[in-house]
């Protein structure tokens, strides 16, 4: 059960000032509540929250490897079932662990129908290892393995549609949300853990270090992503999209120009063609989810 007052991922961890995932971790646990077991993947949140012998977690927490959190959670869930226990079983993993290296384990766990909630904190690259491109990295973002250069405008592929992949597995509840809307995160995590079966929540978590913006602007960046349509908050219930958050859309340029990962689109001169391609992605999102508020 959700409890907005509880702090189950507590202070004392070593996240960067203004870290999006750290804030998301707090919100996730407010949504899931104390009767939860967390299975973590290797990644930023694992590293900043559990340097032995200290831990930021006030719920049972286990980390095994980078790519197996969903399989570990499957085992935890099976054991609880056999023992007649009722704790929520959560995975909390980054986008690299989710979109890339762990996708097989997730697919298996969802196909088998385990009663688990898989939460991806999506900061759109491998941040812990130094900002390398993942399948969640947006089009044209410059990362250390998709650097913008004389012949490149950064990451040359659009973001993988992970929520749709998991909805296609027959998940009863898939949701996306952003840390810029904390009540929405808490509500969606609560709904995910109280829905029987494998459920998925993907949280947009701006990363000041990896994206290149001031740590005081994390919430603002999250809001800008939603307001330009590059990130959409929606639910997929039993395969059907419900309740996509409507916005009075702003141009993507405003969101792009405040981040170093897109700086190459603005200097030495503005790259209108590439910005137009990114605008087209936002336009397609708006069309697909019907998020535009028409005045």
């Amino acid at each position, binding site marked *: 059960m959700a409890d907005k007052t509880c702090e189950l991922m507590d202070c004392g961890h070593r996240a960067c000032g203004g870290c999006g995932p750290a804030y998301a971790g707090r919100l996730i646990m407010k949504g899931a509540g*104390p*009767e*939860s*077991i967390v*299975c*973590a993947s290797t990644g930023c949140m*694992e*590293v900043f929250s*559990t*340097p*032995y*012998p200290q*831990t930021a*977690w*006030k*719920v*049972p*927490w*286990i*980390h*095994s*490897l980078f*790519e*197996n959190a969903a*399989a*570990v*959670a*499957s*085992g*935890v*869930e*099976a*054991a*609880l*079932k*056999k*023992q007649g226990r009722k*704790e929520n079983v959560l995975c909390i993993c980054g986008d690299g662990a989710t979109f890339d290296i762990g996708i*097989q*384990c997730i*697919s*298996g*766990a969802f*196909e*088998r129908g385990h009663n688990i909630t898989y939460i991806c904190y999506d900061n759109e690259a491998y941040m812990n290892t130094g900002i390398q491109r993942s399948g969640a990295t947006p089009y044209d973002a410059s990362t250390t393995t998709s650097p913008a250069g004389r012949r490149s405008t950064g990451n040359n592929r659009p973001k993988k549609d992970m929520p749709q992949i998991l909805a296609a597995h027959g998940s009863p509840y898939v949701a996306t949300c952003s840390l810029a809307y904390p009540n929405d995160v808490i509500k969606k995590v609560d709904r995910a853990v109280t829905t029987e079966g494998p459920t998925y929540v993907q949280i947009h978590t701006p990363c000041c270090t990896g994206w290149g913006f001031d740590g005081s602007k994390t919430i603002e960046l999250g809001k800008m992503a939603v307001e330009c349509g590059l990130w959409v908050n929606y639910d997929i219930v039993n395969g059907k999209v419900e309740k996509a958050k409507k916005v009075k859309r702003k141009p993507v340029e405003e969101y792009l120009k405040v981040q170093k990962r897109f700086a190459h689109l603005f200097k030495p001169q503005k790259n209108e063609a590439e910005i137009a391609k990114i605008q087209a992605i936002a336009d397609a999102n708006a069309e697909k989810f019907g998020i535009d508020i028409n005045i």
Partner: protein
Amino acid sequence: MKQILEGSHAVAEAVKLCKPDVVSAYPITPQTHIVERLAEMVADGDLDAEYICVESEFSALSACLGSSAAGSRVYSATSSQGLLLMAEVCFNVAGMRQPIVMSIANRAISAPLSIWNDQQDSIALRDCGWIQLYAEDAQEVHDFHYIAYKVAEDHQVLLPVFICFDGFILSHTYEPVDIPTAEEVNAFLPPYKPYNMLDAKNPLSMGMYATPEYYMEFRYEVDQAMMRSADLLRKVGKEFGEKFGRDYSNLVEEYRLEDADVALVAMGSICGTIKDAIDEMREAGKKVGLLRIVTYRPFPAEEVQKALKGITKIGVFEKNLMIGSRMKGAVGYEIKDAVNDSAVQVLSYVAGLGGRDITIADIKKMVGEIEAGRGDCFFGLRQELI
């Protein structure tokens, strides 16, 4: 009660009596008959366990880790490529001190692809922190499961166990197997009492990362637990003998070694053939004996030293290959280290890889090579193919 059982089914019967809460496995030849039989037992209600039908061996062992961490007794089985796919999880399970028991139907490693027997798979995982037992026959592989859970779950040990048995040679052949009653097993193997576990009432963090100030001590503790497990294996093996009449207190088996001039050392089912060869050679006046390694990890160096004392010609039968090493085999190295005497000849013979048959005549020929001091080589190569 004695039954004529396929080796794989002898394993499944033992697993059933060990009452795991969770079984998670993925099919691979020649292990499949074990997990198929367990699935039938679950389907018929003869085994009250959660059976997680995973999408890979990697997930099989990962799921076992999760269940074990949540306080359940768990079981898995695999072979060859499956074990290698689990490799990362194997190291992790041992480091996290989860007492998982897994049967390994030993099989060769690709390339080239081979479904047939050798012991390269479990030997490749030598340093991952799992206890490794090697069975000679179906009865032993059956019995090892009771002993393995009891030792693994002891709070002085808390390490996982591979129960290795030769694929096809043991997994797919029928032998009489004495199966204890559920009451007898319950009296021997108490329910699993986790040392700690994931529990919302008592939250703790498992699998935290360690900085250079802490990492080495964790690894040291794994090694110390492995060394301690030797005594537990002896004690529990003795207790098993007292209850069931089959004593496993020795981590090695000595066969006609007392007055031997030549000793063969081997692991697994080949030891049956070697014993027959020794009987024939003894009748012909040759003083040959066998030292069978039952526990490869922890390695029983003291027993080996004692058993081989005074024997100056030792040959090690290797169903594995240490590519690029002078001795060629992973067992020979351990024997040489245990004997630790430059006056004693310890030679390795890589043989029977990928399921190549080894006969009594081959063993006799190998003993001839030992006597002649020729070794540290492949045995039985088809020269016309090279």
